[in-house]
């Protein structure tokens, strides 16, 4: 069975932010939330790197481990999704996530954040596929339509890869063989652990 992953080829990313814009537009993400962001390291200096970041859908997801209401669940193809009807907006997942993926729509005077929002891998949520209520809560469900996340499909330099982890790793390997090893598959060692330790 396919294990869905993201891979950002930072040797190709040109920090155009098209992935960020595509995501916000596709899912009508609330104002103030970015499910995906482009992070630039050593900005303006020789050798700067840009990485497109969102939820990595980790194998041993720390957000799910700390959630007090167990609103996270994993699918058979290893996506980490959450149920907004259960979320209480406590913010624990935000502190636990090594990638800063969880976002909150509100900043209230008494600490109210609203229900957590994050990348769904364009796979919706626990509402039935492609229903108006699913779109309202989680955005569009491209995976149910037989497509891949729009951020990756939109990427003009093909820096952002999404899909079956084995296939995109093969694509990346071909690139490395042609051009030499660059910065590596950023984040993979953190997100996709082969062995779990407790």
């Amino acid at each position: 069975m396919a294990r869905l992953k993201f891979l950002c080829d930072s040797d190709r990313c040109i920090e155009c932010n098209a992935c960020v814009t595509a995501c916000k537009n596709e899912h009508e993400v609330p104002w103030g939330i970015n499910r995906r962001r482009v992070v630039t390291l050593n900005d303006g200096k020789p050798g700067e790197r840009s990485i497109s970041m969102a939820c990595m859908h980790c194998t041993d997801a720390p957000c799910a481990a700390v959630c007090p209401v167990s609103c996270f669940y994993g699918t058979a193809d290893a996506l980490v999704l959450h149920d907004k009807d259960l979320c209480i907006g406590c913010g624990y997942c935000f502190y636990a996530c090594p990638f800063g993926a969880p976002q909150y729509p509100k900043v209230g005077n008494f600490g109210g954040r609203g229900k957590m929002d994050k990348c769904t891998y364009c796979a919706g949520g626990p509402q039935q596929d492609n229903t108006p209520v699913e779109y309202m809560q989680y955005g569009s469900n491209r995976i149910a339509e037989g497509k891949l996340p729009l951020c990756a499909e939109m990427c003009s330099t093909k820096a952002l890869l999404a899909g079956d982890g084995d296939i995109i790793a093969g694509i990346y390997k071909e690139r490395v063989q042609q051009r030499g090893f660059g910065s590596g598959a950023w984040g993979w060692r953190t997100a996709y652990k082969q062995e779990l330790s407790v």
Partner: protein
Amino acid sequence: MRDGSDGMAQARRRFLGGLGLAAVAAPAAAFEADGSTGGLPPRKETEAEKRAPRYRETDHVRVFYRTNRY
């Protein structure tokens, strides 16, 4: 003169009434963008449907893989 002051009073009432409505409507609009169902009836998947594999390797996906090899 009296008609004119009545008209002003009514305009002021409409303005203040509008302010009150905005004070109620603004938090309601914020709640809509808060992750709720927005008034739509929920249509939850079963536990098995939630965890079922969602990915399918369609022609669309195969084209994505092919073009990323360039």
